[in-house]
Each structure stands twice: as structure tokens, then as C-alpha cells.
């Protein structure tokens, strides 16, 4: 048990030093911060590509291609037949390697092939994504301006809410027209009304973001005050 806690002790202490290095930026940009800034960029650059290989390229692409996913039973039969079609993955892999022609002066256009391909791909997906997300949103906006309660009387609170919702939606929607609203047109006159309503929305964002940001600070201080200090005491003690 001692050996395991020694490693986690080292991990916590290094984590505390790294946190204080980043916090030192609050005083001013300094060497201590700059050193850990570069360490952070270096670690990130190593972790990201390897995780893509380890969690996707290897299990889903390379293992089937090399036949390593096939289990050979003691009697010579196999768990699943080798899929020669998986070798077709070599085509997109070769095509994807064209990215690296970015660095060549003469053949940079080859990189444009694969970049264009991914532009076309993300364009097509964005088309489907728009309809899948927008349609329920539009249908959700069909709110009756007058709402009756079960007993048949007008429910004023719901009616007010729905009317305010629809008016706000249309005014803000109207704010984002760019090729209408020539001087003197109605649309041009009511367009500015959208901006104050937007401010209510951004105020709500600011208020809820305060909670988000402070939570991060709380967690860091809790780590320093609780975990790091007790790790230091253990080492010193």
C-alpha cells in the first residue's frame, strides 16, 4: 500500500507546483509560468495523436486489416473469418496522408484535395444537422398567444409568457437580416429593437457563466488547500 501512495503523493505534489506556476501568471508573465506553459503544450501534442491511434485506428482499422482480431482456437478453427475487405481501409489512409503535402511548395495542391474532401464532407453533414436540430425548435415555437385553463377561463400568466416569447423571438430574428431594412422601411425601423432583448439573453449567459468559472476556481483552491497541503505534510512529516 505504501508504494501505491508514494506514486500518488508524487503526482499530487507535481500537480500543486504546476497549478501554482499557472497562478503565478496573475502577478505577471514570468519564467516559471512560461516553462510550464511549454510543458503543457508538449504533453498535449504527445497525448492527442497517440490516443487517436490507440482508441480508434488500432482497434477499428489496423487490427482487422492485420487479422489480429481473429482468435485461433486450439483445434485450428477461428472465431471469425479474416475480412479481406478491411484492406480497403488502405485507400482512405493513403488519401489521408495527402495532408502532409501541406509542407511541400510544389505539391501543396495535393493537400487541398483532402482538405476539400473534408470541407465537402462537413458541408453534407451540416445540411442534415441543420434540419435535425432546427425543425423541433421551430415546432416548439408554435405557442398559442391565448391559453385557456381547464375550466375555460383565460390563463393570463401563460398567455403573457407565450406572447412575450413569440414577440422576442421574432424581433431578435429580425435583427439578423442584413440585406433588408433600407432607410425608412418598417423592417429597418424595428431591427434595432432586437439588440436590447439580446442583452437580456447575454446577461443570463453572464450570470450562469459566473457559476461555471467560479466552480473551476473553487475546485483548484480545494485541490491546493486540501490535497496538496496534506501531501506536503505527509512528505515533511
Amino acid at each position, binding site marked *: 500500500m505504501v508504494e*501505491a501512495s508514494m506514486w500518488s503523493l508524487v*503526482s*499530487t505534489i*507535481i*500537480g*500543486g507546483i504546476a*497549478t501554482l506556476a499557472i497562478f503565478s501568471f496573475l502577478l505577471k508573465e514570468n519564467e516559471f509560468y512560461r*516553462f510550464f506553459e*511549454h510543458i*503543457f503544450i*508538449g504533453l498535449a501534442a*504527445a497525448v*492527442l*495523436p497517440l490516443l487517436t491511434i490507440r482508441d480508434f485506428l488500432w482497434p477499428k482499422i489496423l487490427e482487422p486489416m492485420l487479422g489480429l482480431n481473429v*482468435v485461433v*482456437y*486450439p*483445434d*485450428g478453427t477461428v472465431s471469425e473469418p479474416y475480412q479481406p*475487405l478491411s484492406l480497403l*481501409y488502405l*485507400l*482512405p489512409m493513403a488519401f*489521408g496522408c495527402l*495532408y*502532409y503535402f501541406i509542407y511541400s511548395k510544389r505539391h501543396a*495542391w495535393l493537400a487541398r484535395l*483532402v482538405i*476539400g*474532401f*473534408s*470541407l*465537402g*464532407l462537413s*458541408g*453534407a*453533414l*451540416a*445540411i442534415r444537422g*441543420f434540419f435535425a436540430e432546427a425543425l423541433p*425548435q421551430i415546432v416548439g415555437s408554435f405557442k398559442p398567444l391565448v391559453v385557456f385553463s381547464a375550466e375555460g377561463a383565460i390563463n393570463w400568466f401563460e398567455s403573457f409568457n407565450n406572447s412575450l416569447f413569440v414577440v422576442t423571438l421574432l*424581433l*431578435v430574428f429580425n435583427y*439578423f437580416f442584413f440585406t433588408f431594412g433600407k432607410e425608412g422601411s418598417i423592417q429597418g425601423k424595428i431591427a434595432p429593437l432586437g*439588440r*436590447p432583448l*439580446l*442583452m*437580456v*439573453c*447575454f*446577461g443570463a449567459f453572464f*450570470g450562469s457563466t*459566473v457559476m461555471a*468559472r*467560479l*466552480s*473551476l*476556481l473553487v475546485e483548484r483552491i480545494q*485541490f491546493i488547500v486540501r490535497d496538496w497541503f496534506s501531501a506536503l505534510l505527509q512528505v515533511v512529516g
Partner: protein
Amino acid sequence: MDPRTKLIRIVTLLGGVYFLVYFLLPKSVLLQLGIQQNHESISNGFIVVGAMAIGLGLINLLVGHGAKIVFKRAGWSNSAALLIALAVMFFVTCAQWVGSLQSSYDIREVQLIGEFASRIVSDDQDASRRDTVPSVSQRIGALVGYGQSKAAFMRQMVESQDASLDSQESRRALLDELRIALNEFQVGLDGLESSRVASLGEGNRAVMEDLVARATRLGGAYSALRQSDQTLTLFSRLYGVLYDGLFVQLGAAMFSLLGVYIAAAAYRAFRVKTVESALMMSAAVIVMLGQISAVFLMLHLGSFGEEAYRFLPKVRQWLLEVPNSAAFRAIRLGAGVAGLMLAIRMWLSIESKSFSSDKRG
């Protein structure tokens, strides 16, 4: 338009064709065309193209910071620290991965006993496969032979590890579970061997299914122990320190700066100068008060405190559900339409001049 640009535009079109066809055609047609059945591997193919770009960032860093070191430019020592961190993390991550791959293959060799036994039963029941595989007695003979050799290897491993008394309590529990599973498996295997099963009639199949259960338990116990051992290797420890100790903490620390920055931004910029900033601030304060209404209970303000504790979250809920949702939905729908138009332009390569490549080499 030069041939290269034409080729780029055709490839861009092809990039989007598959997914647009998949979206535009009804499912029934897709099934008839056989697209639906192969959709997963086709999609994986597209993901592979993007995954190949993972080295780009690495090359940029190596070239940029490498040049700084070689030519001893300002800040080269930090660049050296960056590249060392990159190399160490790369090596440790690879070593840890290779170690876990090796142990997962070892685990698979034990697990295949259970898989193979259940496969013998299922193949025997499937008329179409029965004649493509060896006879039941041959297969069971191979199973028993393989099972005995694996059991002997694991018994020897368990006994050697029993001798080393310093292992932790949790590991001892895993070792005990493996020993029990091993003995159970040995009983099942010996029973199968002695019963000389030649065909899988009603009675014999129960013996086999019993062995499958025992082998599966053995596989589970062995994999639990090996996975626990895997976390104790040097490279796993180093990976833990670098990943959890350094990388995770640096990320969390960077993000936490926002906690103090937001305070500075609120103090400096949240000044009521215009109607708009007054509206923005009052909405922000209403939302904040709704999030911390518990404070009114703590300040012992009597009935006012209770009333505020109950009322403020409702006001916040109303502001978020009505004015905010309406305004934000309008932003989202507008941006959605703009995105749709740009998506069509991108797919059809209706590019703006700044991106057109007529003059590019």
C-alpha cells in the same frame, strides 16, 4: 479553370455525396442499394481520412521549436523543455499501451477457453456449420489439451505469487478469486475429460455448458488480476504521474484562471453606462441570485429569507425559460440558416475568392 482546381472541386463534391445521398434517400431505397448494411464501415472510412491528420500538429511543433533550439533563438530553453516533455510523454504513453496490449492478448488466451467451449456447442447445433468443423470428440480433445496446459501454467503462477507475501490486500483478494476459479475449472475439465464425450446429446450438453460457465469465471478472474497488475507497472505509474499529475492539473489550473478573470471583468466592465448594459446586468444579477438563494436562509432574515429562498429560483427559471430562450432560439435558428447556406456553398465549392485556388501552385 486549371485541371487541378477542377479535380479539387470534384473531390470536394465526392466528399459530401455519400452522406447527402444517405440523408436524402428514404431508408427503403438505401436498403435495396445495400448502402444501409455497409454504412458503418463506409463511415469508418471517412473517419480514417480525418484521423490521418493527427501528425500535422506534431510536425508543426517539431519544426517550429526545433528551429528555435538549433539556431539558439530567444526562449530556446523553453522549446527544449517542450520537446523533452513531448518525447517523454510519447515514449511513456507508447510503452504503457504496448504493455496493456500484451496483457490483453495474454488474457485473451485464457478467455478463449470459454469462447471455444461455447462455440463447440453452438456449432454443433447449427446444421450449416456442423460439417465445416472437426468432429465434436476431436474438438473436445483439443479443448481439454489446451485447457490443461493453461491451467498448469496458471497454477504455477498462483503458487509463485502466493510465496511473495508483500502484495496488497486488494491484490490478495484477486489472487484468492483466481485460485478458487482455477480449482473449479480444473474439476469441470477433469469431468469433461473422463466422460469421453463424443456427441453433444441432451445430457452431454449440460456438461459442456457447465464448463463454459467455469471457464468464463476463470477468464474473468485472470483478467481482473492481470489488469490490476498492469496498473502497477513502472510505465503505468509514470503515465499516471505525467497524465493525472501534470497534464490534468495544468488544464484545470489554466481553466481556473477564468474564475479570477471573470471577477476582474465584472468589476471593470460591468458598468451601467447604457440601457443595454443595465438590461444585461440586471438579467445577470437575477440569474446569480437564483443560483445562490440558499444564502438568504443562512443570513437568518426570518420570513423575508424564506420568501426570498423560494421566490428567487422561480424568477430565474422564468427568465431562462421565456425571454432568454426566445432570444437564444432566434440566434440559433438564424445561425443555423447561415450555416446551411455555407454548407451548400462548401459542398458545391462555391468559394469566395479569398479561398479560390486558381493561382495556387
